[in-house]
């Protein structure tokens, strides 16, 4: 009992989200009869307050107090959770603002969408904190089930429904495989606690059997981060879902998936080997498994992105490629890799959500997601073109922008770990990626539009959102020091030091 009460005080951001969730559900019911506009404004207001509250409290909690386990060793409140919490809150805030401006969600009641958004945000935090096999499965499924509904939110739209069905079928199969793997792991170790798993694995060599179990579990985690070969849902779901939901899926669950990946492999399957390095236990070479995943994911994502004509599909493959880059950092087997992933995600949040913001704003005027429809944008709106240019150069990893910093962290970690060949594969992939990002820009700047070309108008919200997302991308290098200090916390995993 006292443990639960004590844990609650370290649980403030999640509690705020839950409170906001309760208020949103009740307010949604009470305002059913009110006109759509006033009800939507009220509900988004409540959600925004809840998310901002969670952001502020999670920022204050960052680095304050010793790392400790919560709720009878179900969750860990340590540096990794501390760094990931603000990432989730920021993602949800941007997605909330995007869903107010999206043409697809106009005239749709947003009450349930906002309730789901709050649920998923809290569940993402549980994912990032879980140190128990039950908790890993439970939080992962909470995120999944809520996002299935978000993808199918436009219930009269065929593509949205189709995307949702594909998502839930792929999701259920991969989490089912993961669950089977977890049950076998439980049989091998007789415990559900990650530290217990590590202790039991350290006592013997399990070899190929353990590797088989790990492949099954990697299916569930790979599904969440959209790593090849568990990525088949990704392009279809990203295309069919309402664009704000697509933007959310490309950042939120992916980040949480990496948090679980770090916890599961770095805590449950490895022990500290001194100097921040870790050594795998149990006689299964999971470093090789992750390296294979990283190489396949990067290469497939980048090559497939070259062939796309729909911008949402292109960004889907680009997000797969980014997952591959982050997987490279996960192969490092030291705290440096953890920091690289945290820093990459913090920057990826701004560049990827930025690109989706431009896509949503462009869709308001063109009504299309085809890249060809962006022709002549340079004349219609230089502002939007420049913003898109910044986001795309950042995604490419071109030096003055923040994306370069993200890549720098990953490649430095990989090279320091002596995995030179992996870094070479990564650099080649980054070169391929430049082609398809530049393709979008080429259409925007050089191609002439054939039809009438009205200039684009923006509301103040649009401009605010663009500024919010552009500034971190442009000034990324100035904030290098503070980013370094913040992501430093991500290394203080409970017990891993």
């Amino acid at each position, binding site marked *: 009992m006292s443990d639960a009460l004590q844990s609650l005080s370290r649980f403030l951001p999640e509690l705020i989200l839950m409170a906001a969730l309760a208020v949103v559900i009740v307010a949604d019911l009470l305002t059913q009869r009110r006109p759509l506009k006033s009800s939507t404004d009220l509900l988004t207001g409540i959600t925004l307050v809840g998310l901002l509250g969670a952001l502020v409290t999670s920022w204050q909690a960052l680095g304050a107090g010793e790392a400790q386990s919560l709720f009878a060793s179900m969750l860990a409140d340590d540096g990794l959770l501390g760094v990931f919490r603000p990432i989730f809150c920021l993602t949800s805030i941007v997605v909330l603002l995007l869903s107010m401006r999206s043409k697809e969600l106009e005239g749709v009641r947003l009450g349930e969408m906002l309730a789901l958004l709050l649920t998923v945000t809290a569940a993402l935090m549980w994912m990032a904190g879980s140190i128990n096999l039950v908790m890993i499965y439970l939080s992962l499924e909470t995120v999944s089930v809520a996002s299935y509904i978000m993808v199918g939110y436009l219930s009269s739209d065929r593509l949205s429904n189709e995307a949702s069905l594909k998502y839930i079928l792929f999701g259920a199969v991969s989490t089912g495989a993961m669950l*089977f793997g977890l049950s076998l792991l439980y049989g091998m170790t007789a415990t559900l606690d990650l530290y217990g798993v590590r202790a039991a694995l350290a006592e013997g060599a399990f070899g190929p059997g353990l590797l088989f179990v790990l492949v099954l579990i990697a299916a569930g985690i790979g599904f969440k981060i959209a790593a090849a070969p568990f990525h088949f849902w990704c392009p279809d779901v990203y295309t069919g879902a309402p664009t704000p939901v697509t933007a959310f899926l490309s950042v939120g669950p992916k980040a949480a998936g990496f948090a679980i990946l770090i916890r599961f492999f770095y805590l449950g399957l490895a022990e500290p080997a001194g100097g921040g390095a870790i050594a795998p236990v149990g006689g299964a070479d999971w470093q090789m498994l992750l390296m294979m995943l990283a190489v396949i994911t990067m290469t497939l994502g980048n090559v497939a992105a070259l062939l796309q004509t729909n911008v949402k599909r292109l960004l889907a493959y680009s997000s797969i490629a980014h997952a591959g880059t982050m997987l490279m950092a996960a192969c490092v087997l030291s705290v440096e890799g953890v920091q690289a992933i945290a820093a990459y995600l913090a920057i990826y949040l701004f560049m990827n959500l930025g690109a989706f913001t431009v896509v949503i704003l462009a869709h308001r005027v063109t009504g299309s997601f085809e890249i060809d429809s962006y022709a002549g944008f340079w004349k219609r709106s230089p502002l939007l073109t420049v913003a898109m240019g910044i986001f795309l150069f950042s995604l490419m990893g071109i030096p003055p922008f923040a994306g370069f910093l993200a890549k720098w962290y990953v490649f430095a970690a990989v090279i320091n770990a002596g995995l030179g060949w992996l870094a070479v594969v990564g650099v080649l992939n980054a070169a391929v990626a430049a082609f398809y990002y530049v393709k979008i820009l080429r259409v925007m700047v050089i191609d002439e539009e054939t039809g009438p070309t009205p200039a684009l108008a923006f509301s103040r919200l649009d401009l605010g959102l663009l500024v919010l997302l552009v500034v971190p991308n442009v000034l990324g290098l100035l904030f290098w020091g503070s980013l370094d200090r913040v992501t430093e916390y991500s290394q203080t995993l409970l017990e891993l030091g």
Partner: protein
Amino acid sequence: MIPLEHYLYISAALFSLGVFGVLTRRNAVNVLMSIELIFNSANINLVAFSRFVEGALGGQVFALLVIVIAACEAAVALAIVMSLYRVMKNVNLDEAAELKG
């Protein structure tokens, strides 16, 4: 007493059947039924290990949670299938292929 291996054979068979069903069935509802097989194969594992390993009750709790989650997931999946049926007039997965490329 039935030895542990027998439970594991059954669960492995169920898991394989489930995966086979997911890969071969074209009707969305059939695929969902195959997915239930996968979940329940894991449940058998969890409960069997929990019964045979001294002092490990966690597996039974885990299995209960899995049943709850599987029910939620089935509810959501069937709602989505219904919604898709209203738009598409059937639930054949081969025809739900407008998103491709």
